[in-house]
């Protein structure tokens, strides 16, 4: 059955691609065995489904009339110049990086999508020799169960609904027009227009619970012009460090803080005075506290106080200190 459908789709694509004229529905039915052997109603159903299938494959079927003066029945065709892959004129190195890119995905579906794209390039004569480059081998993987549904929704622009919960909170049903997905620190996020809040929002895929349901037709909304996922997701990234702090760090200790050093002054007694910039008092106090006696905050006072608060809580074992 599946084979018969595949065969029918291939023949439909070939027929529409080869014809210079618009093919009427009758002509299409006549030229493809499976259509011809169906009842008129079954043919109508199959033809509609197949047209939808071609849309899903990214193939645009054009509708039109061969001669508008004769009030012809409308027909169908695939415009060859629009359907065929144009020459990309890739250099040897560019072809090699595209070849390397197909090895990045550790996700069966997307590895296969990018491989198909590469094969299409090879079919127009692009010579792909990845050995001309020796680069980093980054990997992209996903273990979020909702990833496939989100990817699908994003690339087809389909509105979606899903249950979403932060740890320890009750799940809430959210409605989203997804604009894109982004990976940060090996975690995937989906961003878009949140229909419940009426503004752009970002959601972590690992917090999506259960199935993602579609709530509309593909392409039923527009992504605002100039949308960049990095901006939609900017709340994820740390702000620029602007505040100044002075720390006293034992020699050869406090490595993560020393990396931020703008100035290091040896003080004797195996101590260095280290000047750094930071963006979050909370983050800095946490990092300093993690080193115990090896790092002490000299200034500013509010970071000092935050560290003392943490250390006091560590001594008493209490769970009450405010963040």
């Amino acid at each position, binding site marked *: 059955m599946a084979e018969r459908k595949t065969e029918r789709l291939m023949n439909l694509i070939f027929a529409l*691609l080869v014809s210079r004229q618009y093919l009427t529905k009758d002509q299409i039915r006549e030229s493809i065995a499976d259509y011809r052997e169906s009842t008129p109603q079954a043919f109508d159903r199959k033809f509609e489904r197949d047209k939808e299938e071609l849309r899903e494959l990214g193939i645009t079927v054009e509708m039109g009339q061969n001669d508008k003066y004769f009030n012809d029945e409308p027909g169908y065709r695939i415009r060859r110049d629009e359907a065929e892959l144009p020459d990309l004129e890739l250099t040897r190195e560019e072809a090699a990086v595209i070849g390397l890119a*197909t090895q990045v995905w550790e996700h069966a579906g997307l590895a296969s*999508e990018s491989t198909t794209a590469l094969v*299409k390039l090879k079919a127009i004569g692009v010579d792909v020799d990845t050995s001309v480059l020796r680069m980093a081998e980054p990997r992209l993987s996903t273990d979020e169960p909702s990833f496939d549904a989100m990817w699908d929704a994003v690339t087809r622009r389909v509105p979606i609904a899903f249950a979403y919960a932060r740890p320890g909170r009750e799940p809430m049903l959210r409605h989203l027009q997804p604009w894109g997905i982004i990976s940060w620190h090996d975690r995937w996020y989906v961003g878009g227009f949140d229909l419940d809040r009426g503004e752009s929002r970002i959601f972590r895929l690992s917090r999506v619970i259960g199935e993602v349901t579609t709530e509309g037709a593909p392409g039923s909304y527009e992504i605002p012009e100039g949308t960049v996922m990095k901006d939609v997701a900017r709340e994820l990234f740390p702000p620029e460090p602007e505040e100044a702090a002075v720390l006293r760090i034992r020699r050869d200790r406090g490595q993560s803080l020393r990396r931020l050093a703008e100035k290091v002054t040896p003080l004797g007694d195996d101590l260095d005075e280290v000047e750094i910039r930071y963006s979050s008092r909370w983050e800095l106090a946490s990092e300093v506290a993690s080193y115990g006696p090896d790092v002490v905050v000299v200034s500013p006072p509010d970071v000092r106080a935050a560290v003392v608060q943490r250390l006091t809580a560590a001594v008493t074992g209490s769970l009450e200190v405010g963040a």
Partner: protein
Amino acid sequence: MSRSRQQVVRMLALVPYLQGNDGVPVNEVAAEFGVSPKTIRDDLKLLMYTGTGEYAGELIDFDLTALERDGVVHIRDAEFMTRPLRISTREGAALIVALRTLRASASGLELTVIDSALAKLESAVGDTASTSVDVVLDDVDPTIHGAVVEALTGGKRLALTYATVSRDEQTDRDVDPRRLFTEQGKLYLEAWCLKAEDLRFFRLDRIVAADVLAIDAEPHDATPRDLSEGFFTVGEQTPFAVVDLHPRAHWLTEYYQVDLVSQGEDGVWRAKLYGADWSWLRRLVLRNAGSVTVIEPAALRERVVDDARLALEAYDEAVVHKES
């Protein structure tokens, strides 16, 4: 994507590919398309029922003798489709995000090549694909990144100063680089460490200094560690602490290896928290003091208290010092 849709996409690419590569072995086609030789043979069989009509010469044909005897493919009567269809939005998005990932871990001249490849690809695929997906990696000092790439591509030895986080110390060592890769959104160098006489991983943002030496890197016999499960896997020997987590610290359960033991009505969760070693666990508790507290083992609990006490003394001293 459904299996039959995948097959249609593959067959549409096969037709022009086979014409451009007349006489290609089935096994090579399978490798190029990332499927089994049997899948390709099934595709070919089905392709023989397709074409521009139903008569001889209108249907795609193959040299079956060559296919059966030599396992090579000669396609015939397919001249009506010599070019593949455009790269679809889905294919383009998968490839573009992969290129952006490469870009995030590339350096120097490589960036120029990746950017021009991306630009050409984006112009061929269209906007939807290029805006909808992205990958962001942490920034790495370009000098260090550049030195590592230079040593790797030039086959040179590297002198590294490296900050070890759990033991909180800096060490100098010479290494022979093997590969650069990402794990959990961070860049790592895998290299043979001449000091340890073994393969080691170095996180690029923890390399304090890297000098390319005028010595060629040597080949070393070593099996790379299997990272398919990630760097950190919990085994029977993995140290763990039983901790209480204030609601403020519940996020830890999303970031670290944690087994939840119980959830109290006051919002405090009790959990087993696994770490690479005890000093890592101690630092994690101190970092989150007030939101995380150790229940057991007693040794860790006492060590945390001792460290915090010692640290607090430094603050008292500083205060006294100022007043006097």
